[in-house]
């Protein structure tokens, strides 16, 4: 029993705190990789766009995770909390930046849809092998 406790203290606690601290980064890394994989390997242009949006989401989430503080509240001024202690509020800067980044991402997606429509109009397909064949 004591052995188990020692084991718990010596290994599990650090492990759990490690997971608690870094799981978000690791998930996002995975998401980023999934996105890259989709963009490189998927043959349908629509799927490529999905991969692109995964990459963008992963990047955006990365910033948001970085802005998180334990035991802090949202970024709206709350009278009782006052303004003196910045640790009471989340960091608003990454939030702002990501707002912009999301907009950029949306517009990029919109443009890519426009391109897809233009491509389909010319080649009647969105699958890359067929597309390359018809481009010759």
């Amino acid at each position: 029993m004591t052995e188990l406790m020692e084991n718990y203290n010596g290994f599990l606690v650090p492990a759990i705190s490690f997971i608690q601290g870094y799981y978000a980064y690791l998930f996002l890394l995975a998401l980023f990789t999934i996105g890259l994989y989709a963009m490189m390997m998927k043959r349908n242009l629509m799927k490529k766009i999905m991969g692109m949006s995964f990459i963008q989401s992963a990047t955006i989430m990365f910033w948001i995770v970085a802005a998180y503080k334990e035991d802090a509240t949202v970024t709206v001024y709350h009278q009782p909390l006052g303004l003196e202690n910045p640790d009471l509020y989340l960091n608003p800067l990454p939030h702002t930046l990501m707002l912009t980044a999301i907009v950029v991402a949306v517009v990029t997606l919109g443009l890519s849809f426009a391109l897809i429509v233009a491509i389909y109009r010319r080649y009647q397909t969105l699958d890359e092998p067929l597309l390359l064949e018809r481009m010759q």
Partner: protein
Amino acid sequence: MATLELPPRGDVTAPVHQTVNKAGDPVAGAYFIQNAYRDAATPNMVTVILADYRSWDTLGEVVVVFAGGMACYFILRRRES
């Protein structure tokens, strides 16, 4: 693996959350929290940063939106009306 050198999630002692950085200069995030309401009489700090402190970014964002619209217009419209 590089993520291991980043501060863990929710770490209050991360450089981003300090009031001064290692070189002794003020850090933007803490300044915004402390002064946003004072500077623009607006409780939502994100709005203040978005539209005042970093309004140039937001103008850029608006221009991106405009550019996106213009780009779709350029690509898809057959003829300008």
